[in-house]
């Protein structure tokens, strides 16, 4: 399915079976999260990639 990037407004291709919580990197440089908004699948900017200690 084609969804709209909430940042740049561009098209984002998301697999039809995408689950809420899945992640997509868009060409505009933002990482997006698939969300279920009242039965409608949408995208929202991911809150952030955490930095973590560890090897």
């Amino acid at each position: 399915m084609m969804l709209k990037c909430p940042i740049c407004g561009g098209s984002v291709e998301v697999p039809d079976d995408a689950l809420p919580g899945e992640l997509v990197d868009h060409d505009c440089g933002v990482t997006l999260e698939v969300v279920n908004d009242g039965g409608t699948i949408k995208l929202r900017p991911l809150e952030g990639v955490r930095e973590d200690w560890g090897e």
Partner: protein
Amino acid sequence: MRKLLEDLMLRLLKTYSPTGSEELAIKAYTDFLKSIGVNTVEVDDVGNALFTYGSGSKWLLLAGHIDTVEGELPVSYDGKVFRGRGAVDAKGPLVSMTIGALEALKYLDTSRYRVTVAALVGEEGRSPGAKALIRRGLKPTAIVIGEPSGCDGVVIGYRGSIKLRLVCRGTGGHSSNPEGGISAIEEFINTWLKLKELSKTLNVSIGMNYISGGQLFSVIPKLCEGVIDVRVPIGMKLSDVKSKIDELLSTYCSYEVIDETPPVRVSVNVPVVRALVRAIIKNGLKPSPAIKLGTSDMNLLVSLTDNIVSYGPGRSELAHTDHEEVSIEELELGAKVYKDLILEFFTNT
């Protein structure tokens, strides 16, 4: 599943295996596999243990490591929590990965798909285990690195590192007249202070692991040397960092690179990341993408494929501490995520 996790985890924890001394732990690992009927285990020329099932062209490599940092700890298990060196980094992830892969085998068409689980040696050192896989020219479709990220963590990047041996040389002379010569120790300290300033301007971290120098009595130090650990953020070239270090060295100091690893960052769009994210969601958790400040074999094995991610149960803040512990619930959940990751990867990406 729980009994297998407990059995393998205790075998590995009870076999202390600091980097360079992994042979007995590898034997404990292969003995466990043979005890449950897995007889296709290979121990390669550097001491890695690998087992493979399936023969398909779509091939998933799960790469954990069996070595730990130095420092043996008492091993215990009270039915809930495992404690001991490597419980977090990274015998716990290796155990979950192994049992998860064996669980997935029950559901896979092995004529189409292939899975290899590798217990690598030397990850806490210079990664001879991972480098051996690269030398062999393995071409897996995708790789999952077994490192603690918490049961919900999706590690998509690691910083790089440069290990330097910094050597400063003085002129000698009588220390009753310190202005009469060049002190190697003072040159070293001056260089160190410049390096700390550089760390702020470049946004790299610079730490000192070791220092040695000078003589006990009445001699202006002729030699001072130390090992410096530079961690390089994603997007920065190692060569750029080394050029900046070159610029600040005095004529009395020089360095050699002991080891270096470039940073790595993969897209969440690669299939194995998607498979991991879906597996975490299916196990009732919210995936949490992360960048690690350390390094791992992911920094090296990305040269085989950029379809790569790192994951494993365990709280990474406990890694390398004297309080390494992980619960059986974490191992069990981790194994389920690995199992579902494998199934997702082969059937849905």
